[in-house]
């Protein structure tokens, strides 16, 4: 079975631009979470979605938004990019909300110049 997939692998954007990152969960998993991992740090929670509804939100500005589609895939959008948004963005899927095991994708490396 395929694991969690993310696209693109790498991305370079300029300050002020907008970016969309995509994630497909493991087949049968209905919950998707997004994390930001700055170099040298542990991942920080951004969002969790289950059945297309936001179920959890971390301490990130409103420039960050996300959504989940009927096929359970998800998009993370970031507006008005700042240099500090440069990071590895990780997507994780789990079977259902309240399922505490999360399985991570390979991540999208975003560089903002």
């Amino acid at each position, binding site marked *: 079975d395929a694991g969690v997939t993310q696209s693109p692998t790498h991305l370079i954007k300029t300050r002020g631009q907008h970016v969309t990152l995509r994630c497909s969960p493991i087949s049968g998993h209905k919950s998707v979470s997004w994390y930001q991992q700055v170099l040298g*740090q*542990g*991942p*920080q*929670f951004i969002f969790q979605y289950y059945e297309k509804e936001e179920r959890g939100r971390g301490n990130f500005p409103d420039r960050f938004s996300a959504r989940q589609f009927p096929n359970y895939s998800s998009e993370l959008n970031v507006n008005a990019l700042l240099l500090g948004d440069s990071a590895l963005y990780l997507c*994780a899927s789990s079977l259902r909300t*309240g399922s505490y*095991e*999360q399985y991570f994708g390979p991540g999208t490396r975003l560089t903002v110049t």
Partner: protein
Amino acid sequence: AQTVTQSQPEMSVQEAETVTLSCTYDTSENNYYLFWYKQPPSRQMILVIRQEAYKQQNATENRFSVNFQKAAKSFSLKISDSQLGDTAMYFCAFIGFGSNYKLTFGKGTLLTVNP
């Protein structure tokens, strides 16, 4: 708010030896899970082992085992018979039943296994 602390930024071990990575956490919740994740240089985060707080028995997965001390809020990972492929960043993570489904991670420990 939950916090997870990994006090060892880097560690090294010789192949075939045993190494223990430390983790402490702080929470007011009584029901929670703890995890160790491994992130090799290829960056895919892999779940290594998990521990339910209500279980007194320490979790074990092949060469990986934990020492869970709930009262001390300590959760260390022991890797036996270390292999070169164990070289990676190791993250300790916490999730509480009332924590809005978010995993809280420590800053990680970079483990290098030397031949």
